[in-house]
Every structure is written in C-alpha cells, then in structure tokens.
C-alpha cells in the first residue's frame, strides 16, 4: 500500500545540561492517504516530538540518531541523520540545511497546526498577510491566474458564467469546464465562492459574479503576471519584484478572505486587516488552520490544536476538522492527549508511550478493545458521566535519560514478566490492521 507519509524507526534525543533525554526510541507510523490518524499519549511520550520531527522543526539540541521520515519517495530528515557525533555547531548547520531543503515542501505539501494559537502568529503582521504569504511563496501562479482571469474576462464572459452556474446549480465540474473553454482559469473558485456564500441575497450574488470582469492593470504588471502564470518564478529584479509582490499579496488577501469564510470566520474582510492581538484564541486557531490548509497540502499535522482553547471553541474546531476531512483530500495526523477528542475525529489511533508506538489500530478497536496494558489503563483514566470509577495510572513515567531495558512500560505494568525486563517487545499483529507491542499478545 502506498502511504501518504511513513515514519520508520525514528530515534531522537535531546542534549541538555542535565543529560541526554531519549525522546523517541524507534517510532514507526504509517499515514494512509485521506485518513485521520490520531496520536495519543501522556506528556513526554514523544507525540509532539514526532510531529515536529516530521516537519524538521526540531530544536537545536535535538539529535536524530537513526530513522527516516519518508514522504514522496525521499527521506526528509537525511541532513540530520548524517551527523555522527553530536555538537551544537554541527547540529546548528545541519538544521539550517534542513530548513533550506524543506522550505519548498513545508506549507505546500506538509503543514502543521500548533498547540498555542496565542503565540503562533506573528504579532507585527496582519493575519491576512500571514495567510497570503504562504500563497505567494508556494502558489504565486494561482494568484496570478486569479487576477489575470478578472482582467481578461469581459462582461459577456461573466454573464455566460453566471448562466452556467445557475443552470448547473453551482456544480463545480460544469463551471470548471466553462472556464477552461474560455481560458479564464482562476475565475472558477472566485465565482463559486460567491455563489456559495449564504450571508448575502441572490441578487447581490449575481451582481458580484457579473463584476468579476473588466479589471484594469498596468502593462508591466500584466506582463509580470503572465510570465508568472506561464511557470516562471517571481522575478528577482529589484523594483519589478516589489511591484509584483504587492499585486500578489493583494490577491492573496482576497483569497484569504474567501478561504476564511469557508472556515466559518465571520466578517473575513475585516479579519484579514487585523493583527493577531485583536482576535480571540479560537479565531487565531482558525487563522493558523487556514495557513496550514490553504495550499491543499497532502499531509496536515495538528499538534493539540484544541488543548489551549476553551471547550466551546474546542467543539467548533473539532467540527471544523471533521468537515475538512470530508471536503479536502489531505491526510491528517491529529496529536492529542485527550482520547475522547481523538475518538471524535480519527480513523485510526496510535498510542505512544516512552517514545514508542505501543498500540495502533482502527479507532473502534483501540478504544473499545485495547490490547496493550497501557492503553487499557489510559482508557480507564478518562472521566465519564456514567459514574464509572476513574483509575489513574500507578507509578511514575520512566526517566528518559536512562530508560529501563526491555519494554519501557515494565516498571508500571501489572503484568510485567521477566522477559519484559530484558527484551524489547516487537509489534505483534493481533487482528486486521491492529498492532500491539506487548509480549502478552504473541509472546509464546
């Protein structure tokens, strides 16, 4: 089976003054196309580190001692794994190299939503700018065609377009065909966006669609946009690049407004002009999600997107994720410490402990019939309304500077056997799609 992304035997340690913390100890994960993979575990289990490692956003004291992140046939972390002996300087330059190499992928093919909406946005830039920036970096030709389409379209074109939309009741394929036949690519999403709005009445919609035409631009700008549309990059010529960027950012704002509106942001025209501190936490999280999704990436990593917001906003964001799952064809990795949240959104769930994946399987099976003792205990620790007794997990999390030999859970496991203290359990297949790293499951 072809995976959207796979993590193989990933090992990451953090070098600190207090010692070397082994954060990931051989993580294996496969993300299938179009699925939502939930990753659960207590703090320190390595779930966030996994997310950051996939993005190549590890801090400067992190060493990737082995393993790979395979995406589109290449190992994303190659520059980091090539370091033999750890030193801050060497790591620093490897990380710089990594940033250089991954910049074209990040935000375009893989993107990430962080836990803290309050601090994830740049305080001195308008949110519209921050959304438009991803578009200008990764998809300038789209912006160019959107703009050029409005320049090229005549009143007659838009009148016909409106007719097509009305006749087909907003069918995407019909509109796309029409637009292509008239060489107006880029117009379809703008027209459909207007058509699907429900905050204005029919008449106004029609007016707006008809007005998607006859824009005037200067001849230099037009030439620049055309070369961009033809597949050339953004020009590097000093004055011209500035001119072009200004036009592109303006168009980016326009697309950002459309996109925010589909994410349920009220009054998006105003919002894009605002600075992050003027927005609420839930709103900022939507902006961050918009930044992550606007380029239709293949993989989206959501690192506890609901942990820092209050319960009602959490519910809204979960709805949004579920809705997105239906609408877009990205694959999601959804990281959370909250199993009930994962139960809502995931297709499969992976449970992490001590920097390893201990159990992974379809969400119904993992939540209803867990096979790993840790998963069982984790599920028993979820508070419910039916008055079932909550049982915490006894014992302390292992010291990750010096993890116990064998199964990393052995010091807290009620079923620990001698074998568990000596050997590391492999991943056993217990049923279709369900894997558990525990000797109880296959250790004959």
């Amino acid at each position, binding site marked *: 089976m072809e995976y959207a992304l796979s993590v193989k035997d990933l090992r990451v340690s953090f070098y600190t003054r207090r010692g070397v913390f082994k954060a990931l100890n051989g993580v294996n994960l496969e993300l299938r196309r179009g699925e939502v993979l939930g990753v659960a575990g207590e703090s320190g289990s390595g779930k966030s580190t996994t997310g950051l490692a996939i993005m190549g*956003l590890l801090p400067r004291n992190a060493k990737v001692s082995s393993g790979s992140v395979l995406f589109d046939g290449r190992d994303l972390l190659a520059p980091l794994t090539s370091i033999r002996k750890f030193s801050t300087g060497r790591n*620093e330059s490897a990380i710089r190299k990594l940033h250089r190499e991954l*910049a074209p992928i*990040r*935000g375009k093919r893989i*993107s990430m939503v962080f836990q803290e909406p309050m*601090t994830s946005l740049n305080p001195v830039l308008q949110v519209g700018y921050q959304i438009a920036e991803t578009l200008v970096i990764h998809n300038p030709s789209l912006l160019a065609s959107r703009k050029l389409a409005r320049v090229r379209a005549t009143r007659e074109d838009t009148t016909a377009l409106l007719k097509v939309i009305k006749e087909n009741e907003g069918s995407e394929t019909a509109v796309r065909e029409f637009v292509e036949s008239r060489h107006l690519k880029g117009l379809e999403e703008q027209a459909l966006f207007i058509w699907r709005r429900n905050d204005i009445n029919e008449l106004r919609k029609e007016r707006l669609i008809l007005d998607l035409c006859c824009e005037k631009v200067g001849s230099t700008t037009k030439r620049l946009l055309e070369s961009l549309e033809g597949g050339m990059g953004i020009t590097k010529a000093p004055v011209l690049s500035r001119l072009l960027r200004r036009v592109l950012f303006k168009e980016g704002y326009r697309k950002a407004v459309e996109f925010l509106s589909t994410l349920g942001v009220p009054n998006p025209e105003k919002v894009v002009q605002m600075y992050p501190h003027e927005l609420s936490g839930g709103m900022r999280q939507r902006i961050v999600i918009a930044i992550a999704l606007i380029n239709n990436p293949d993989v989206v990593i959501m690192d506890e997107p609901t942990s820092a917001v209050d319960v009602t906003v959490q519910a809204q964001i979960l709805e949004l994720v579920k809705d997105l799952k239906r609408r877009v064809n990205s694959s999601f990795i959804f990281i959370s410490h909250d199993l009930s949240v994962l139960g809502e959104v995931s297709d499969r769930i992976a449970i992490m402990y001590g920097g390893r994946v201990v159990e992974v399987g379809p969400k119904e099976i993992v939540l209803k019939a867990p096979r790993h003792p840790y998963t069982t205990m984790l599920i028993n620790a979820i508070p419910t309304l039916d008055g079932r007794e909550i049982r915490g997990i006894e014992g302390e999390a292992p010291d990750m500077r010096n993890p116990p030999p064998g199964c990393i859970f052995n010091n807290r496991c009620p079923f620990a056997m001698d074998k568990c203290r000596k050997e590391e359990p492999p991943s056993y297949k217990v049923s279709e799609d369900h894997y558990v790293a525990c000797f109880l499951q296959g250790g004959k």
Partner: protein
Amino acid sequence: MRLWIYIARRLLILIPTLVGLTFIVFALTHAGGNNLILAEYINPRLSGPAREEAVAKLTAELHLNQPIYVQYFYWLAEVLKGNWGYTNTPIFSGSVTQAIALFMPNTLSISLFAALLIWVIGIPLGVFSAVNRDSVGDNAVRVTSFGLYSMPIYLIAVALILALGVYLKVLPFAGVVNPLLVSNVPWYHNGISYPTHILLIDAIIHGDWVVAGNAFLHMILPSLTLALGVLAGVIRILRASMLEVLDQDYIKLARAKGVPERAVYNLHARRNAILPTVTFFGYTVAGLLGGAVVVEEVFNYPGIGYWTTQALLNNDVGGILGSTLVFGLILIFTSLILDIVYAFLDPRIKY
C-alpha cells in the same frame, strides 16, 4: 485614533519629567549657597562696602532672599526666557545659551554620525550573530563586543588615535579642522564657522571642498570612538532579543509554512527583535551624550562635552549646570520621539 491618545498621554508624562529635570538643576544651582550664584554675576575685584552693596542689590534682583520654592519659579521664568546664566571658561565666556548655540552643533554632528555608524554596523552584526549562533563569526562578534563593553571610552579613543592617527597617519585626531586651511577664510574666525557653526556644512555652503573634506576627516575618529563605546551594548541586546524571538512559536510557524530562511530572519524575526530595542536606544542616546564629554575632551573637539570639562576644570557653575540642563532636554525629547516611533511600529501598543 488610539495612537493619538497614547501620544497625548506620553506628552502628559513629559510635564513631571521636565519639572523634575529643571528642579534638579535648580536645586544643584542653589545647593552651593547664594555665594556661588552671586559669584557668576559679581565683579571679583570689588571689595568692602562696594561689594556688600552689590551683593545686597543682586540678592534682591535675583530673588535670593525669597523662600526656596518661590525662587524656583523665578528661576524657571528666567530659564524659559532664555536666561540660563553665565559661563566663564578659557574656550568661551558669555551667556550659557550662547555657549550652547556655539557648541551644540559640533556635539550633534559627531553624535549623529556615531548613531548612524551604530545603526549600520550594530543591527546587522547583532542579527548576524544571533542567526549564526555559535558559529566562528558569532564567537568573534561576541568576544569583540564583550571586550569593547569592558573598555573605558578614553582607552578606545587612545587606541584609535595610536593606530589610525599616530602609526598609520591616515586620520587627524585633534580639533575640527587643520587650522592652516581656515586661517584666511572669511566665514571662519576664532574657531567658529558661520552661519550654522557646523564646519562641514558651512564649508559646503561656501563651496570650499578642501575644508569640507578636512572637517569630515576630523569627524571620523571622534564619531567612531563614540560609536564603538555604545556599539557593544547594542549588539549584545540585539543578539539576545533576536535569539529570544527566534525561539518563538511564530517563527516555528513561519518555517512550518515554508518561508525561506532569509525571509524568516529579515521579515518575521528582525522587526520583532528590533522593536523592544527601540526604547533601549534611549540608553544609546544617553551613552552617546555621556561619551561625548570624554571623546570631545580627548579629541579637543569643541562641543558641549568639551565645554563641560572645561567648566569642570575651571569651577564654572554656569557651564556645568547649563550642560546638564541641555543634555537632559535632549535626552527627554529623543526618548519621547523614540516612544512615539515605537508606538507607530508596534501594532500591539494600546492604551
């Protein structure tokens, strides 16, 4: 709109500060007792009854017999009228305001030149150092700035004089101009150029490029000394600020959305890193003005600082307190301007 409220508030805070500044200067003037003040005005050769008479007359005239807080208002009124007292030093005798008008242009020109050097050297180096953290370049910048930070400014001055002035002989290091060049120039006499009193500008106005070039050369070493004296602090603060910003979540997000590294530093990080240091530039200005006192003394550069040290050496109250007042005013108004600039740059300011 909010911004105007902020600026209005900032202007209101200015009032107590100005009152405080003037009060300190007033208090210092009077701390030495009336005799010190009278000495400024009275003919030292007078004695006996003639002197007593003069003292009594002046005491009444200057309101020295009134309660101290009343005197403050009389004094303040005089200061506002432009009567800042008299100064008597070998380089200038006359009213304090005249002295300031003569000396301030020179101080301003080397301070501004130094500020420019700090701007073009300090900010790129601080950013470079943070971005290339722990690299050879970073370590070199850090060690150098740490060393500069620990040097008294006169040592920097002397080291530069020795290296560039005495051994390499590429730059002059005394005064504002080679006196031979201006001995026959009509718009320059007694060490004062007209009309702006800034020799460089006056020479350009009169089209005398030789003098202008020479005056510029004379500015380099004092300005460079001043800049180096303050630079280390600027680099350290900026590097620390930049490192802190680079650790922020929004930088992580910028990278996560594929912003190229150069734009991460130049667009996302630099502005956030410089913002908190804008207010810190108040310190820079204080450092520049304080440093000017030493630098002008070492380079015999006739500015406010040189005048201050001359006043000190000649026990001249008018000169010392006049320069204190004018230095205070400059600092207060520059920090006002910096605060307003900061408010313009940072959208988060809300009051």
